[in-house]
Each structure stands twice: as structure tokens, then as C-alpha cells.
């Protein structure tokens, strides 16, 4: 497993342009669409990606999620980092420069 703290807490991510991310009523879930496919996201993943809007830092996302799910930031932080790492690896999100 890669170091889950690779991403600076102050980094900002946005959805990569090939992808379209939105809520899909018929699936009652967030979906990520790209030319050859569709990914249905679980609720936590959906909440994290919703916040990858180029404005929130990773730290902001951690705080917002810990409030949303009533969990300690220490519990949420490694999970957010890990998920963002996976998303970045799949090309779903890109860091803002």
C-alpha cells in the first residue's frame, strides 16, 4: 500500500475533465461517467468526490466529513487520504495547480 499521507493536506482536487460526476436519481447514488463506463459510488465516496471541486483543501474535506459522519478527524483523515490516492491513481481527480 502506498503511503496514505502522500497528498498534502492543503492540496485541492477537482474532477478530471473526461469524467462527469453527479447525483443520479434513478440509482439513488452519485455516479462518475466516462466514455466507456459508469462507476456507481457508495455514499462516503460520493460525499468525498462532491467536495473535490477545486476549492476545498484535503483538510477541509476531512473536517466536513468528520462533522457529516460524527467521527473524529483522526479517524476520517487516513481514510480520506487513502480514497483520494485511489481516485488520483484511477485518473478520476486531478490536483489544482
Amino acid at each position, binding site marked *: 500500500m502506498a503511503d496514505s499521507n502522500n497528498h498534502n493536506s492543503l492540496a485541492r482536487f477537482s474532477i478530471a475533465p473526461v469524467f462527469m460526476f*453527479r447525483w443520479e436519481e434513478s440509482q439513488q447514488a452519485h455516479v462518475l461517467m466516462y466514455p*466507456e463506463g*459508469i*462507476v*456507481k459510488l457508495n455514499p462516503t465516496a460520493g460525499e468525498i468526490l462532491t467536495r473535490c471541486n477545486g476549492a476545498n483543501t484535503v483538510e477541509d474535506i476531512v473536517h466536513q466529513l468528520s462533522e457529516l459522519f460524527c467521527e473524529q478527524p483522526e479517524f476520517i483523515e487516513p481514510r480520506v487520504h487513502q480514497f483520494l490516492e485511489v481516485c488520483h491513481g484511477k485518473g478520476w481527480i486531478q490536483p489544482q495547480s
Partner: protein
Amino acid sequence: MAKAGSNLNLDGQGNPVWLLLELTYKCPLKCAFCSNPTDLDAHQDELTTAEWKKVMHDARNMGAMQIGFSGGEPTLRKDLEELVAEANDLGYYTNLITSGIGLTRKRLENLKKAGLRHIQLGFQSSDPQTAHWLAGVDCYEKKINMAREIKALGFPMVLNVPISSLNIHQVPDIISLAADIGVEYLELANVQYYNWALVNRDQLMPTREALIAAEAQVAEAREQLGDSMTIFFVIPDYYEGRPKACMNGWGSIHLTIAPDGVVLPCSQARSLPGLDFPGVRDHDLASIWHESESFNLYRGDSWMKEPCRSCSEKEQDFGGCRCQAMLLTGDAANADPACSKSPHHHIVQDAVASALASKQDHSRLIARDVGWVPTEM
């Protein structure tokens, strides 16, 4: 296109997810491998703008999320920009599937404004002469120019190159060209033998040796290019003995609307004799999808015969392609003869042998000669 499995980790829960609109069968090219019907003139009465919009609304209400604008050549429709804008407003992920002929810088800019997300550009060859043989028209320069314009406007793009005996030896050049243009995704699509491609099968089918060589060249290129470009290439069903998981199953997630509004489980299904596909001009889209005889005929697996019925792979490949089963064995409910377990597999082996024994020469290609419209290059 009779695609193999689409990537998705959700199911349509009984509803369509992918909507393919074949806006017109007309085309400025005459590709000898074209999968469009060979008897086009029977279905030239195209839906109006308002009728296409209604189809998009209805399918979106049913749960469709991906939309492809194809044909024929979709850019021949003057209302393409308007239809793309409508699809985008409805929340679809919009794909344009085009030969590039009929596009201009101005139209691309307007499509971008309309919300077009992605373009699939059909491409014949890295060599202008071969491209001319395959497309029946001189179009190489125009396509390259359009490919560069598409990238200049920042569209994500797939280059779709149908692979046949005429261009398989050019695979390394095609890869270099795609990398030079800067495409994200190169689909080396083995020609599937429907309609014009079936007419030209002896001329188009590559040898096993050529395929294996191409596969190695693709592997080498993948290594060199890393993440910058994804190359899709699979050994075709004819040689693999494995059928493709056609359309993820009949009437499962794919919905195709032909130019005249006829509703199909896949573009090729229209060629199945004895099946009467309803159209959106006479019936409600949802009722066609859920209740029509044609959509229910090969849904699920209760229609299957042996060897599929008791086969452990039926949930992965759905018994292959119904159209290929029909075209080659005369019964769409048979196992796809590309499957080595099919009692008709020898038909596919004979087709391979026949192509091998044929003198392959570009001058023997039969160009698609219906629905052609001249266009300025």
C-alpha cells in the same frame, strides 16, 4: 456497434443505461467494413428534431445516463448541436461518434458550447492510400486535420480504428500517429463481420499470425507509452474460440434507436429476419423496452439451447452475439458459433480458412454503395 462488455459497476436494474442514437444512415464515406445495414434505402425516413428530443427525454426518465450520437454520419444532421445541448441539459454524458467528415472548427466550437463531453473519431489507416481503399473516398488529410482541431479544443478523444488485413501491419504506425495527435485512448477495433464487413469478409479477415504480431506490438507500445495513452486491442472472437459478451446481454442495458425511430437492442439486430421491431412513432419507448416481444425474446437465459443452457459461462458471455448466431447458423437462439463449444463452430473455422485461401487484394473490396452523400473535403 455490437460492443463487447461495457465497463460499469452498476446494473440498470432492468432499465437501459446506454442510449445510442443513429441519427441518419447517410454518410459521405463508403467504408468496405461498415456495419450499417446493406439495404438502407428501406429506412430513410429520419426522425425530426422534436422526435429525437422526445426519445432522449423518455430514455432519461427510464434511467439512461450515457448517450452516443452515431449513424451513418451524425454530423450530416444540421440539428446535431441542438440535440447535444438537449442531451447535456438532461444530464447525459454525451459522446459523438463521427468520421470527422462534416465537422469544422466552427461546428466543434458550437458542440463544445452545447456541452459535448467526448468524441470518438473513426479512422482507417496511418497511410493515405490504405485509408482511401478502406473508406472508398479520399479523406485522410481531412481526418487528420479534424483530429488535431478536436484536441486543440480540449475534447477527450478516442480514435477508433477498425482493424483488418489491410491495416493490421500498420499497427505500430497507427499507434505513433495516435500518440502524436495526443489522443487519450486508441481502440484498435477488430472488424466485426456484419453487413458490409460480412460482404467483404474474405478480403478483410487478418491471419492469426498477423494478429499475434500486432498483439506483441501493442504490448511493446503500452510499455513505452505508459499512462499517456490507453490502447484497447483484443484477439477477435473468430480466433479466440470465445464469444463476446455482446451488449451485456440482449435488452439488458443497451438501447439503440435507428434513424427512422425503430428501437433495437443493438444496431445489428435489425438484420435478424422474422423479428418485427417497433418504432417510437407508434409506441411508447418504455413499453417497447419492457413489453415488446422483440426485446423479451432473448432476455435473460430461458431462451437458450444447449450447450449454453447448461454452461457455466452463460452469465459471463450471455451465449455471445445473437446476430452472429443468426447470420452464421440460421437461428439466433443457437450458441454464437465463435464459441468453441458450439456445434456450429466449424462455420467460423471455415470462414477463417476461406479468408486464408482468398487472394486478398484491395481492388476486390466492395465499397458500401448506399446512402452516400457527396461532401466537400
